[in-house]
């Protein structure tokens, strides 16, 4: 083989596929308690810009190692002839279904692959494993043993003395809870198996680390985008003259919440896809309670938005006239009520401008919107606008949920299957551990994002990137 290849071998049901799944970040690998589900050698090429730098090979498990070794030992080859003896075994049993798995797992090793021998370190060592180890030693290929613990027990100390005799390197590797750094450390150990593999492995490791950084930045973009969108998201609907507000309020509230939840879901799927999780599913309590409703529809906001433009302009004009009248009174009427008139006009104008601004936010702004607002004003129509969410806790809850989800996704080994349940964080998870300065900085950013200020969105993404660095250090 021209590029490094590593055959992951071992007895059936010792976690070979789990290790391959985690190392290759491929959650499509079938992992079953049933022995013998891996019936063919499956290649997982690690490619950088299309160039294969090394390949992981998942193999069927040993099932008749004792008989294989007995066949080999019966030939009594010299040490130099042992690899040839193994090849002779494979050739002799190529069509024998009894030894099909052994032939398939040995073939890539005989073709030049390194050996990654997997044992279950949670259960006791048994001498019969020496049969498999001996066969692998006979192949003459560079070998490493991986102690994978399937279960709560720890018999690693029992295994070590035996493994050390058969393998150049012995590493512990829990396929279900390994971190990215531990994976990289293992790959660095692979490079030591054969000096000729170092260059390719170094390039692969560098690319994998760069890719990890890229994913983290992408995730920051997704989460920052979610926050910025959620903090500025608003829904508006016109209310027919005379129609009660409560009729519009319910459906609009539901639409608003559903849309926010849908955006959060979309962002989560994006982050999961970034990290190659296509099978595992995450279960979390949907945003609800005080995180959403409590702060969104404060009575004050609702009542202000419920006023007709005429009511607002009238109220403005009256208040302006009162102030102007005070000035008239102060000069003893010498101003001939100019103050009252001007005050009324200015107050009403300011209120009209304010209405225009509010409607503009809901309907796009600009001259045309203002004219439409004026038309609504004349018709006595009302506009109901929901959002953006003004609750002070809202961005924190959203951020915390996103961070908790991100940490789970970034650290979840691809060998894990099933549903991952996230804690019901309500602003008390990861963000609670942030320092005062960081919190203040984020709070300012939230406020700027809400005001749609300049590059606040980009700054928010940058800050979230820093937070993700803490959750997924590389």
């Amino acid at each position: 083989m021209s590029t490094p290849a590593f055959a992951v071998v071992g007895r059936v049901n010792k976690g070979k596929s789990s290790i391959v799944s985690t190392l290759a970040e491929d959650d499509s690998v079938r992992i079953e308690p049933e022995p013998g589900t891996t019936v063919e050698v499956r290649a997982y090429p690690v490619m950088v810009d299309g160039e294969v730098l090394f390949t992981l090979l998942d193999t069927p498990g040993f099932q008749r190692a004792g008989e294989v070794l007995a066949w080999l030992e019966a030939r009594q080859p010299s040490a130099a002839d042992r690899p040839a003896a193994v090849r002779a075994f494979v050739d002799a049993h190529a069509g024998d279904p009894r030894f099909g798995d052994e032939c398939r797992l040995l073939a890539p090793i005989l073709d030049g692959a390194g050996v990654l021998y997997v044992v279950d370190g949670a259960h006791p060592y048994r001498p019969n494993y020496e049969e498999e180890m001996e066969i692998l030693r006979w192949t003459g290929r560079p070998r490493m043993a991986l102690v994978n613990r399937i279960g709560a027990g720890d018999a690693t100390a029992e295994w070590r003395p035996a493994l050390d005799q058969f393998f150049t390197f012995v590493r512990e590797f829990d396929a279900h809870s390994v971190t990215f750094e531990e994976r990289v450390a293992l790959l660095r150990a692979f490079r030591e198996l054969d000096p000729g593999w170092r260059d390719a492995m170094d390039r692969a490791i560098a690319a994998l680390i760069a890719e990890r950084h890229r994913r983290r930045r992408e995730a920051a973009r997704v989460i920052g985008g979610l926050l910025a969108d959620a903090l500025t998201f608003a829904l508006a609907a016109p209310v027919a003259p005379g129609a009660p507000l409560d009729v519009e309020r319910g459906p609009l509230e539901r639409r608003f919440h559903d849309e926010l939840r849908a955006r959060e879901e979309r962002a989560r799927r994006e982050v999961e896809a970034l990290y190659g999780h296509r099978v595992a599913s995450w279960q979390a309590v949907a945003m609800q309670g005080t995180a959403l409703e409590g702060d969104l529809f404060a009575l004050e906001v609702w009542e202000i938005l419920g006023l007709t433009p005429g009511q607002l302009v009238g109220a403005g004009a009256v208040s302006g006239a009162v102030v102007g009248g005070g000035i008239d009174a102060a000069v003893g009427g010498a101003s001939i009520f100019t103050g009252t008139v001007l005050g009324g006009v200015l107050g009403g104008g300011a209120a009209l401008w304010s209405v225009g601004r509010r409607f503009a936010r809901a309907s796009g702004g600009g001259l045309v919107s203002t004219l439409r607002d004026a038309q609504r004003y004349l018709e006595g129509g009302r506009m109901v606008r929901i959002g953006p969410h003004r609750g002070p806790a809202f961005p924190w809850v959203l951020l915390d949920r996103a961070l908790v989800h991100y940490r789970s996704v970034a650290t979840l080994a691809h060998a894990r299957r099933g549903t991952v349940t996230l804690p019901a964080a309500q602003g008390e998870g990861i963000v609670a551990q942030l320092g005062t300065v960081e919190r203040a900085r984020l709070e300012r950013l939230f406020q700027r994002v809400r005001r749609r200020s300049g590059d606040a969105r980009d700054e928010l993404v940058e800050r979230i990137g820093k937070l993700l660095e803490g959750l997924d250090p590389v």
Partner: protein
Amino acid sequence: MAIGTRRLGLADVVDLEAQLARDAGTGADALHRRDRALVGGATSGDRAGLVKGWLEALRASAAGRDLPGRAVVRALRTVGALLVLAGLVVGSSTATLVLGYDGARPVNVWDVLLVLVGVQLVLLALLLVSLAAPVGSLGVPLLGLSRWLAQRLWRALAQRSPGVDARQREIAAVVARVRARQRLYGRLETWTLFALTQAFGVAFNVGALVAFLRLVTFTDLVFAWSTTLDVDAGAFHRIAAVLATPWQQVVPDAVPGLDLVEATRWSRLTGAFVGGAGPAASVRAGGWWRFLLLAVITYGLVPRLCTLTLATLRRRWLLGRLPLDDVEVQGLLDRLSLPVVSTRAGAAEVVGEVVAGSRALPRPPAGTGGSCVLVLWRDTPRAVVEPELPRGVGSGVRTVFEAGGRRGPGVAALVSAIASAADGDDRLLVACESWEAPDAALLELVAELRRAVGLRRWIVVVLVGAGSRPPTAAEVDLWSRRLASLADPYTALAPLMRAP
């Protein structure tokens, strides 16, 4: 591939935003593969160079062939050309109107100065003020006229672009997107629109000057000035002299003298020059044209040429220094500069048989004190199994065999020995460690034993847990399913529950 330093053009900016908008719904990995393939593994170059190279490759590909950047630039040029044309027409028409002389009443110098110089100076001043304090960008609806006009213009541009409705909609969406990203493109938009208006201004002045020269050359123009105010010829001369300051050293003939000013004061009451000079004065009155022509050039054309040059240079400068540091472009740059890493399997997995669901095996009949033959599978420790057997399966051990290893006889010989050792009523117990999977070798042994001892002899697979724990439910379930695949009603499974 190394990409050098290159500048982005307006078409590039539009295409960049159009593509980013198109990519919004596509997965990050797919985009990474596409973009990396497009630039062929770019590793160096500045941001603009990388983006430019990517855009060029994109346009050459099927996906980017219909990007709207060039159409928008073409549309902008068309609008610019239309504005220039309009400026020429309006300028020449205005000059023709203002300089209209039918022989009855001379052209009023005040009118020429007011319309062709004064108005332009006021507009220029307003323009400079609006550049210094862009109130239109504050978002106040009634003051946002310029923004509204810009919006109209962009929409008109979108509608002008060739293609179907979808393309127009995309261009409109891209324009809206560009306009929404004010931090990045706000100034670029301002100066682009500014350059268009200044092109109009230059054309207006050129049109006015052409019309002016045509009238001077091919007609006899007579100029005069008049006023109701208490302004004497000396004061008007001083005003004219101040206006002529910029060129008085270069073209002294174009500075009206006091005698010309005095001679060309017009009285509408008498319908004649106040000085009463007759035809000679009329001839002299034609001497104003040089002054007026240079006034239009100096205060109309030159400032507009300056602002047009400024706008063009500024726009180019802004394009050359686009920060390209926003979140989306940074993502693009990541995709362009970082390699695509793939680790997943290329081919679909071939999966072996999986026995679905739980299969209950028959329980062995309770032991009556009879004996059994015990087979220890692969190092199952006899010391653990044997003392527990009476409690588990109710039998005592007659003979013990070891199986599953390389040492000892092969399967056939072993099975033969076991069958020979067992009495007619002896059960066959095969002790296995529960955490080991029931593999093909074990199933083969059980099947061979069945063949050797007949159909109705109980074969009981005894499961031993790890350490002091009994076999787990999951382990028992797995063993049950695998043994059930033998379809043998006299093969039973007995988890060994050791005393604590």
